[in-house]
């Protein structure tokens, strides 16, 4: 299956989803980007350089780890984890960013902008910009700036300017709008490093292509380690880049079931979640440059979303998944905030892994399904990132008294210094 073969359908469309819905002023920029991307994609040297860069800088290939303890405790399927958390900057986001960095070099642009939700994409972009010598501006919803301060701190120290976006819900979608506004002004010297497999064509395809390195590695690794293909592959889905990344390794394997795990937030019916496909609340619309399922009201205005994981808290699903879901090729489930907390606790204590809150959504679903599977069945989870960045959120979520009193003490110390 080549979902990126548009020769039969319309360029940039996956079924009826995708496309380019942008102000006319960006038309030329998108054309330029698309042709540069086509050049890169058809140039084997580009991919080699890309892989070499990630090997040397980010520690790829990341391993696949067997979770012996959890598999035994749950008594069902054998559980394996693809360790994107071991990447430089702590998540899969670096893959896409390094790829777009190389592409930006080819475009001859000297400045990059990016939106970020959890801050991981911003962190990765700031890192790439430092390495490539690009000027860098990161747009981040003010709410996210507040809950992901450690990432903001690192971005700034890496030399990026971080703009807290005060519009709208002050989260990821608003940061994307703000990026668009920057881009329509500065496209001549600026490349927009979109952080996930959403947005106008060619972003979904391009980000998916860079992230496909996850699935290429993972397929080979799991086959080497277990002698066979997994029965199910789980990945969390914000914009869908890590999930597209790992799923692409298995698109041609008909017996491998692919499960996308969305943010269930407060659960079904709460309207405080970001489950576009797993729940029934989303409908098709056009926003942020593309057509897909959005959490929106009848008039097409976006609803408030919520997740304990800032990186999943997005209104739209990537257009490729909207299509694959309708085709029955990818199943969608949601994990609630509560379930995420429990699974995180369990994974930390049982395996010594600290998945990012985003990634933990994939663990929730996998751990729920593993017990009813056979001992000879194999599960692969994509651990898209590490939880270090979430210390404030996790400490809050687990209501850690010592952490709180530590923070109180620190605050007092700082106030003391001031006066």
């Amino acid at each position, binding site marked *: 299956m080549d979902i990126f073969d548009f020769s039969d359908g319309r360029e940039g469309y996956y079924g009826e989803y995708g496309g380019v819905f942008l102000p006319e002023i960006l038309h030329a920029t998108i054309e330029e980007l698309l042709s540069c991307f086509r050049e890169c994609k058809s140039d084997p040297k580009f991919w080699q350089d890309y892989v070499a860069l990630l090997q040397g800088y980010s520690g790829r290939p990341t391993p696949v780890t067997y979770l012996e303890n959890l598999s035994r405790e749950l008594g069902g399927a054998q559980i394996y984890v693809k360790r994107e958390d071991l990447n430089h900057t702590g998540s899969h986001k670096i893959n896409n960013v390094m790829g777009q960095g190389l592409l930006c070099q080819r475009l001859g642009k000297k400045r990059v902008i990016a939106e970020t939700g959890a801050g991981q994409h911003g962190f990765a972009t700031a890192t790439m910009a430092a390495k490539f010598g690009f000027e860098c501006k990161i747009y981040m919803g003010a709410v996210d700036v507040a809950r992901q301060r450690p990432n903001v701190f690192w971005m700034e120290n890496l030399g990026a300017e971080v703009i807290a976006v005060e519009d709208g819900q002050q989260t990821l979608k608003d940061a994307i709008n703000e990026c668009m506004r920057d881009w329509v002004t500065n496209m001549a010297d600026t490349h927009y490093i979109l952080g996930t497999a959403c947005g106008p064509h060619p972003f979904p395809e391009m980000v998916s292509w860079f992230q496909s390195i996850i699935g290429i590695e993972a397929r080979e690794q799991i086959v080497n380690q277990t002698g066979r293909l997994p029965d199910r592959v789980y990945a969390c889905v914000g914009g869908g880049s890590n999930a597209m990344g790992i799923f692409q390794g298995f698109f041609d394997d008909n017996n491998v079931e692919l499960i996308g795990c969305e943010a269930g937030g407060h659960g079904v019916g709460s309207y405080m979640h970001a489950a576009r496909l797993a729940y029934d609340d989303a409908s098709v619309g056009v926003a942020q440059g593309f057509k897909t399922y959005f959490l929106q009201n009848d008039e097409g205005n*976006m609803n408030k979303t919520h997740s304990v994981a800032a990186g999943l808290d997005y209104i739209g699903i990537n257009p490729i998944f909207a299509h694959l879901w309708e085709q029955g090729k990818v199943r969608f489930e949601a994990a609630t905030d509560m379930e995420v907390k429990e699974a995180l606790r369990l994974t930390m204590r049982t395996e010594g892994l600290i998945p990012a809150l985003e990634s933990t959504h994939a663990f929730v679903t996998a751990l729920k399904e593993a017990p009813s599977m056979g001992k000879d069945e194999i599960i692969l989870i994509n651990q898209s990132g590490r939880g270090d960045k979430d210390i404030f959120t996790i400490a809050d979520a687990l209501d850690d008294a010592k952490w709180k009193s530590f923070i109180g003490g620190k605050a007092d110390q700082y106030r003391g210094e001031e006066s």
Partner: protein
Amino acid sequence: MGLESYIAERKQKKDLLVMAHVVCGYPSFEDNLQELEIMAEAGVDLVELQFPFSEPSADGPLFVRANEESLKSGTSVDQCFEFMAKVSARFPFKLLMMGYYNTVFKMGEARFIERLVQAGGVGYILPDLPVEEAGNLYALSEQAAVEPIILMTPTSSHKRLAQLGAASRGMVYVVARKGVTGSKTDMGDDVVALIERCRQHTDVPVGVGFGVSSKRDMDFLRGHADLAIVGTAALKTWEQSGADGLRTFFAELLA
């Protein structure tokens, strides 16, 4: 009467028409009415009524906030159409719907055109709907005799302008500079050259917008453009100095 002939008719009396802009429901529909009253008095020729949207990514900060506030206060699409109907009944100028494509998409393109016609609108501006995606909507528009306003920009290639020009009807909207609405444009040779380039590809009247804010800009555009499109500058004036301010603003602009 279609948009193009309306413009032609008005142009017989003055050499540069003015299109103004109002965000429906911001600060309130009552305020909108007052603004429109002033515009009508001043002799504005066309008005865009912006239907507020939650993701106004082509707008600058002032309109972004206006969209947001309007939605917060409960503005609905129904109200916007009702308002349009009322305004078109009351004032001499013509009305365009301005907004984002999702508003149209969600209600259905056919229904949108139907309601637009019912409310007396003569066209629409959807900045995030490129011509490639607009085939069906344009066909429906043609049947209903309302005009899709196509945008031409400084980054559009000749090839692209040709494509846009071929699809253009009623008028084209020439975006004077890169960026979003709301900041000042340095009107100069670039803008003139851009208008010339656009005219090579279309015969419909040319409006120029983005950053038009003063009599000087008007004087500059006269002879080059058919319409000057005034957006943010008017809203800023309204916010800062109310009805009197706005009256002075348009008086000076149209003097």
